[in-house]
């Protein structure tokens, strides 16, 4: 598997930088396109947790404004990625996107610190996703 790291466009420097992690390439493509088309976000997409973590580690603190990751991924899943990132930079804003049926109890069992409001269920309505990201940026 190869990572897909979009090279930043200097003209978008002021835009919020969003990291999106999902093993479904079709989903990555849709999210990137639909977020960037608003001209408010700069989106970097990764098809595995490893690639995402490497990129996160390679950049300075605050480089990514918001991280959105899938949960069910090969090798490193979304929760592991979450833990690794939080260990490095606890104040990083992370949300999950998942196609699973979610209930709070099941997730608090895995990661007690996660708030259920940080879950976004697929299929994602793009307007909802944008609203969610904006509220995270504002907090």
């Amino acid at each position, binding site marked *: *598997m*190869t990572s897909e790291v979009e090279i930043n466009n200097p003209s978008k420097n002021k835009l919020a930088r969003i990291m999106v992690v999902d*093993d*479904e*390439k*079709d*989903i990555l*493509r*849709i*999210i990137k*396109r*639909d977020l960037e088309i608003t001209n408010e976000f700069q989106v970097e997409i990764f098809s595995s947790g490893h690639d995402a973590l490497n990129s996160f580690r390679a950049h300075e603190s605050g480089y990514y404004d918001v991280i959105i990751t899938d949960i*069910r*991924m*090969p090798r490193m*899943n979304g929760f592991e990625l979450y833990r690794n990132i939080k260990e490095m930079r606890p104040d990083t804003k992370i949300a999950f996107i*998942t*196609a*699973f*049926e979610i209930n709070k109890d099941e997730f608090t069992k895995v990661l007690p610190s996660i708030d259920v409001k940080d879950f976004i*269920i*697929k*299929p*994602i309505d*793009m307007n909802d996703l944008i609203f969610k990201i904006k509220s995270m940026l504002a907090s």
Partner: protein
Amino acid sequence: MLSIILSRNNVFLLILVIGVGVSLSILSYHYSGLTADQISEIASSDIRSNAIIETDGLSKTLLHIIDPVSTNLEILSKIVNYSNIDETKIIIDAVQNSTKSLTEGYYWIDENGRIVSISNVNSSIVKSYSNIDLSNREYFVIPKETHASYYSSAIESIDKIPRLYISFPILDNSDADNFKGVIVASIKIHELGRFLQSELAPQVAGNVGLMDKNGVIIYGSNPSLIGKYYLGEEFQSLVPEEIRGPYNSLLARSLKGFAGAEDLILMGGNKTTITYQPVFIGGKYLWTLFVSSPHQLAAEVGVLINNQKNFSTLMILIIGAVALGIAFLILSWNKRLESAVNARTIELRDANNSLINYNKLLESANEKLSIHDRMQKEFINIAAHELRTPIMPILGDAIFLEKQFEDGKTEVKVDREQVSSIIRNAKRLRRLASDILDITKIESQSLKLNKERFNLNDIIISCISDIKAQIISSDPDQLENISIDYVQKDVFIFADKNRITQVIFNLLSNSVKFTEKGSISISVELGNDIHGNNYVTTSIRDTGHGIDPEIIPRLFTKFASKSFEGTGLGLFISKSIIIAHGGKIWAENNVDSGATFYFRIPQE
């Protein structure tokens, strides 16, 4: 039964009962014995005092009957007249008649020892005795010498009848020193004895004896001993050995002129009280009177009490035995109760155990239910994931395209990626739909096979090309990294072509999924079993991750997937299809790397 009853406690109880019984018996026996001894002692002392009184009375009686004889003799000795013998004889006859109950006769003997007259014997017969010389007889000699009365001991004459003689000297009235003969009275000892015996109170039930002061027996119950010395052989031989000592010393004491009463214990423990009383005549101690009183009453009382004692002891023993029996019964009953209780306890425990087992069954049923529940939830989760995931890119592209029409355009530009993404994801949805349908069929046991004859080789080739197309569509780079090897071989089988295709495609896509880099090789082997049936074994070997050991046991169950895409239903469906064909499906990890999946189905 004995061994069952004789537990430690029970043995103790039994010993206790036996001990109490035996102690009671011994106590009772002992107490009865004491009582018997006391009563016999009281009886004995009563007998003793009675005997003393009786003997005293008897001695007085003796004196009372001897006295008239003495008096008669004394008078006769003074009035006999040699010059008038006939007249004197009348007096002598009268005297004899007055004491005839005791005396045999009175004899008048002159100074030369010749008979002058005999009471109640006529003078002609007396004359025939006149030549008998009696001058050497003690009843003649002693009064002659002493001028005093004489009382003989028992003397046997020629006729073998023991007699007692009392004699008084006839002395001249004017000259007391002038001895002129003796007057003798003879007393048949048997008569005396019978008299004394008859005088004895019947309650005493004893025997009378008379002995002179020298120890010669005058009268006794055994006539042969009369006249015998008590220490002589005849008497001693009749005294039982064991009482000889005390008896002899008693007799010796009795000859000292004092009254006494002593107990002799005879053989067998019988007691006899011997009472002795000295008899004084004319102020001289002459004889000793004996009365022997066997302690018949005491012995009888003793026997009675002994009987009582034995009876009560026997009763106590019987009661003890009954108590023992009851104790035994109670113990055995207890034992039976105990074993009944034990049996019931065991039953209860068994019931409890079966309840526990039942609970375990319930638990495992519950567990199965909860597993089922979990699997159901898992299915929903996976179904949700698999349904939602493809929708997003389809909907995303469709909405994106639709938005472009909002600008009033009648045509929008669609790139190839958008179209193939929509197709790819739609196919994914179709695959899920068919999987769910298959599962439904399998679970409702309505999976139908449409068997036909076909070449396995054809469907393998088509599966390989389909999987390659899929790889190109989803990850073109992967195709460069993996090779799919298959040596073509025509193998005709009779099976459900679509289902077998489904199995091969499923196994192949599994291999591709877990082999990012390496090779996948497919081979088909023909074989037969022991029954001669032909089988076709297809294997798909990869060099991928291999199967997680954790998964292997449930590899072919639903949702066993460790992959991060797919429904986790593929292998379950494959297994169901192969089993429906009467075949077998299995998998193993390779020694080096990767795994090999096999399925074997009958050729026909």
